[in-house]
């Protein structure tokens, strides 16, 4: 029964799977961050029609299961447009869009949390709307948003496990394969869980360090 044993080499396989999750997480978080912030800027300028469209799309993305979105992109888009969508492409599109929707909400509420007095103080000295955003609102909003943002990212890291369902060989998928081979679910899923935990903990730790730096000078920590 050699093949049924859980060996050290299997840990390497799991680590490789985790690498897939982390790569996808980093890529989709970055794309989501860029898109989400761009959406928030459109809203800041109150661009007619476009602002409403963005709010509606982000509502759709936030209020439906990621798994359903993933199926829609992976099975639905090829069916409708007769194009080929690989599992990795589908996962990247879905998770990026989903992350963008949440980052949009965080960014908008962070900008709105900064008092009108700050905008007025900058506007009376002749700063343009962009300069106000860039120098006065964004730095303060970032300090406000970084907490919710870290919570979101930790969650999005776990959500990447959903891609195993459409055939991407990630940590969860490899766990599944090892489980079938070894028939030791407790050992396999514990190992898988611990690896996700370690990765999430790392994200949270890095985030907290970043947060402390951003908030070092802020009044609401009382210095």
């Amino acid at each position, binding site marked *: 029964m050699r093949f049924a044993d859980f060996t050290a080499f299997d840990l390497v396989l799991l680590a490789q799977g985790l690498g897939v999750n982390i790569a996808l997480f980093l890529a989709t978080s970055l794309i989501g961050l860029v898109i989400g912030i761009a959406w928030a800027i459109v809203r800041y300028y109150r661009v007619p029609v476009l602002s409403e469209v963005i709010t509606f799309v982000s509502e759709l993305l936030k209020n439906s299961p990621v798994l359903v979105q993933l199926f829609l992109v992976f099975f639905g888009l090829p069916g409708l447009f007769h194009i080929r969508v690989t599992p990795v492409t589908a996962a990247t599109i879905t998770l990026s869009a989903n992350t963008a929707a949440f980052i949009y909400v965080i960014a908008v509420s962070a900008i709105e949390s900064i008092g009108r*007095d*700050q905008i*007025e*103080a*900058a*506007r*009376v*000295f*002749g*700063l343009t709307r962009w*300069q106000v955003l860039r*120098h*006065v609102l964004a*730095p*303060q909003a970032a*300090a406000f948003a970084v907490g919710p943002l870290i919570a979101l990212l930790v969650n999005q890291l776990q959500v990447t496990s959903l891609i195993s369902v459409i055939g991407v060989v990630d940590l969860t998928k490899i766990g599944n394969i090892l489980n079938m081979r070894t028939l030791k679910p407790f050992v396999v899923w514990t190992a898988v869980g611990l690896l996700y935990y370690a990765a999430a903990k790392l994200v949270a730790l890095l985030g907290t360090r970043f947060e402390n730096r951003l908030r070092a*000078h*802020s*009044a609401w920590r*009382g*210095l």
Partner: protein
Amino acid sequence: MIKVENVKKAFGQTTVLDGIDLTIEPGEVVSILGSSGSGKSTLIRCINGLEKLNGGQITVDEFDVGKPRELAEARKRSGTVFQLFNLYPHMTVLGNITLAPIEVLKKPRAEAEATALALLESVGLGSRADAYPAQLSGGQRQRVGICRALAMQPRYLLLDEVTSALDPEMTAEVLAILAKLAQEGTTMLFVTHEVEFARQISDRIVFLDKGRLLVDLPTKEFFAADGGMAQPRVAQFLSKMRKD
């Protein structure tokens, strides 16, 4: 010259300014007195373009505040100091003062910082350039607020109850600086509750009541029994202020 002509402003059903006419010549120090809710702060907020007018016109050196294109130019000519300081909490004192000169006037950073440091020196805060607003006392914050406005080299300084949030000791700190600016010939529009101080530094005193300009007289005449004091509302207001 700041020219306020028949300015009307209402918030919903509430009329706040009801046909104000006022002219401020360069070099003048004009104080605006009046009870809370008389429209003093709103008038300042109309002059620096923070409120849209419902009627009338305000020009700062011929630039119409009501026209978006001219507002930018008008704003470059006036500097506002706020009641609650409104400093940028994430920037150092130096950053607060140099932001607008660098971004709006396109001054080189080194020059803007040199100007800022000289201003800070003149208000006794030369050593606090690298502090954050949260590390300063109220009086110090308002002195930074004044430096921030002065760094734009405005022709007109608009002061909106700049000592209302300060205790008497800190108020004295700030008023001393304003007295110095008045002596140096800075044009100031000074909304205040500090009647005695207004009397000392102002060339003219304007009294607002329920959104209307009731009295606009040279300081001496304003406090004379047959001048501003002849108005019952003014006499009543001043007697109340003195009791406090």
